[in-house]
């Protein structure tokens, strides 16, 4: 018996070592599968209809334009701010510009994703939706993809502004890096969007907004909190915090460090793809949980007659 457990332990140890070795490739594979699942889901006419309706709803809200406009103004202002750092202008503009894309993209993602399902329930349009042949799968996936479309357009518009700035400024060689960094920001926001849609299946809107933002900022400081756990004395708390950090999306991974814009480009394509794969996998898991939670959720219980 002891020998059996020893063999099992060795086997698992080897398995995890192997898993760790090929983890980036596994993440790319999982991301690919999840991307295929999302594309398959989007092929459903019902999902597309709900997604397009969500996009239309967001597009007709004026607040979205204000957020994008503020983002573009902030990026333009970063050109002026960069003058205070002679010799590092390109880096400063890129950092501030990407910060603006991340910040305003985050606001668009959080406010759109927490409203998408909430407005259906509050406005009771969900009753009519449920009287049609649609399931929680169509609704949640449609909402997620719709909001993701809005986030994509917002990030693309702001990125176009920043890229145009770099193209006309004396650093056209950095355009590719800026665009790539913006792509990573989009994948970061895809996870945030999925998290907010998941939250909207069981949380109130305000709680969802606050909790999503809190988790986003904790996720941005992922390595800081990971280092903190090493200092923890109580083993139980340490393991709980480590487990929480493992489950929490590592939003920090999606921020390209400053040296990416000043020195040598430090990323391998495998790292970039595995980061994007991780984002897609986590977004898919959160969307699946959202579908499950929404399936067992009762709507319309606030009023009885």
């Amino acid at each position, binding site marked *: 018996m002891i020998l059996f457990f020893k063999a099992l332990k060795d086997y698992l140890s080897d398995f995890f070592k192997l898993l760790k070795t090929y983890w980036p490739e596994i993440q790319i594979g999982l991301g690919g599968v999840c991307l295929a699942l999302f594309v398959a889901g989007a092929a459903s006419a019902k999902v597309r209809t709900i997604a397009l309706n969500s996009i239309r709803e967001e597009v007709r809200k004026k607040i979205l334009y204000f957020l994008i406009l503020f983002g573009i103004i902030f990026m333009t202002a970063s050109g002026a701010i960069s003058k205070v750092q002679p010799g590092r202008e390109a880096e400063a503009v890129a950092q501030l510009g990407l910060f603006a894309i991340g910040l305003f993209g985050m606001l668009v993602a959080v406010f759109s994703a927490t409203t998408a399902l909430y407005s259906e329930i509050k406005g009771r349009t969900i009753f009519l939706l449920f009287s049609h042949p649609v*399931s929680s799968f169509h609704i949640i996936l449609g909402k997620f993809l719709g909001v993701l479309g809005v986030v994509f357009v917002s990030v693309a518009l702001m990125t176009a502004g920043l890229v145009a700035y770099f193209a006309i400024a004396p650093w056209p060689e950095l355009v590719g890096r800026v665009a790539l960094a913006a792509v990573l920001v989009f994948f970061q926001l895809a996870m945030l969007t999925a998290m907010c849609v998941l939250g909207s299946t069981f949380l109130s809107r305000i709680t969802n907004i606050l909790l999503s933002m809190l988790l986003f900022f904790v996720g941005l400081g992922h390595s800081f909190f990971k280092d903190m756990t090493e200092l923890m004395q109580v083993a139980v708390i340490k393991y709980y915090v480590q487990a929480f950090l493992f489950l929490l999306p590592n939003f920090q991974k999606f921020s390209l460090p400053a040296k990416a814009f000043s020195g040598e480009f430090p990323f391998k394509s495998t790292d970039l793809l595995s980061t994007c794969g991780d984002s897609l996998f986590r977004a898919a898991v959160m969307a699946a949980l959202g579908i499950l939670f929404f399936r067992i959720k009762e709507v319309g219980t606030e009023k009885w007659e």
Partner: protein
Amino acid sequence: MILPRDRGVGGTQRGSALKMERNVVVRTVNLTKVYRTFWGRPYVRALNKVNLEVYEGEIFALLGPNGSGKTTTMKLLLGIMFPTDGRVEVFGQSPRNVEIKKDVGFMPEESYLYRFLNADETLKFYANLMGLDAKSRKERIDHVLEVVGLTEARRRRTREYSKGMSRRIGMAQVLLKDPKLVILDEPTIGLDPMGAREMKDVILELKQRGKTVVLSSHLLADVQDICDRIAILHRGNLIKTDSVENLLTIEDTWEIVVKNLNDGTRQKVRHVILEGGGQLEKIGHPRESLESLFLKTIKEEEIEK
């Protein structure tokens, strides 16, 4: 008034569903719904062991004061909520089954609409959820907008609609679907007398085309006007259910309606009744209903203009 083309549902004439073989479209068995607080403590028993059967081709009304359980019953029929105990069957299946929703149309008490869409876009949205192709979608949308009298207002945002117009667009999405079972929550509420009459005509026409209609209403005159059978609910309990005819007929009283009766003959009739041992309650002129008088007056006024 011509409704959308029939999808081949067997036509059952008015009243015949009560006499011929009865296909049960909706069945509830010991249906119980208890609303609970956040902590799971029961606080309202909205429905208590309700047993109902609604047959194919009939108009069935749920009557009851506020809080009697009418809307809860409808939400359970739509699968929006789940029973605490007992079961609901729609076409012999669970109302959560997405497939049966193709044959179920629902108009809620207040027409819950996407305020950012116009009538055309609203109907297009629901038509897409039903999987209609572009050609038949356009034809049917044009047709139902004409039926509900909203052709001219089709490009106006629904947030600009009056309550009556919102009800019409709510009915339009039901007609667009051309379902076998139509569930209407307070269909005439918020409509002026002419709108209410038109709505009742649409409901009667649905019945003539073999559709089954389940409706709830506070307006008892409307129910008496169009329904075959009714169920009276009070505090979640089913108090009474039967055909309108059986419930309203006063068995020991007779009514003879005669035109052009002179005084002499009337005296003779009175004499014959008294001689036969009958107890004469009233002889006089029948009264027109206020609804009928109102509609006639408006119609005459319109013809004069």
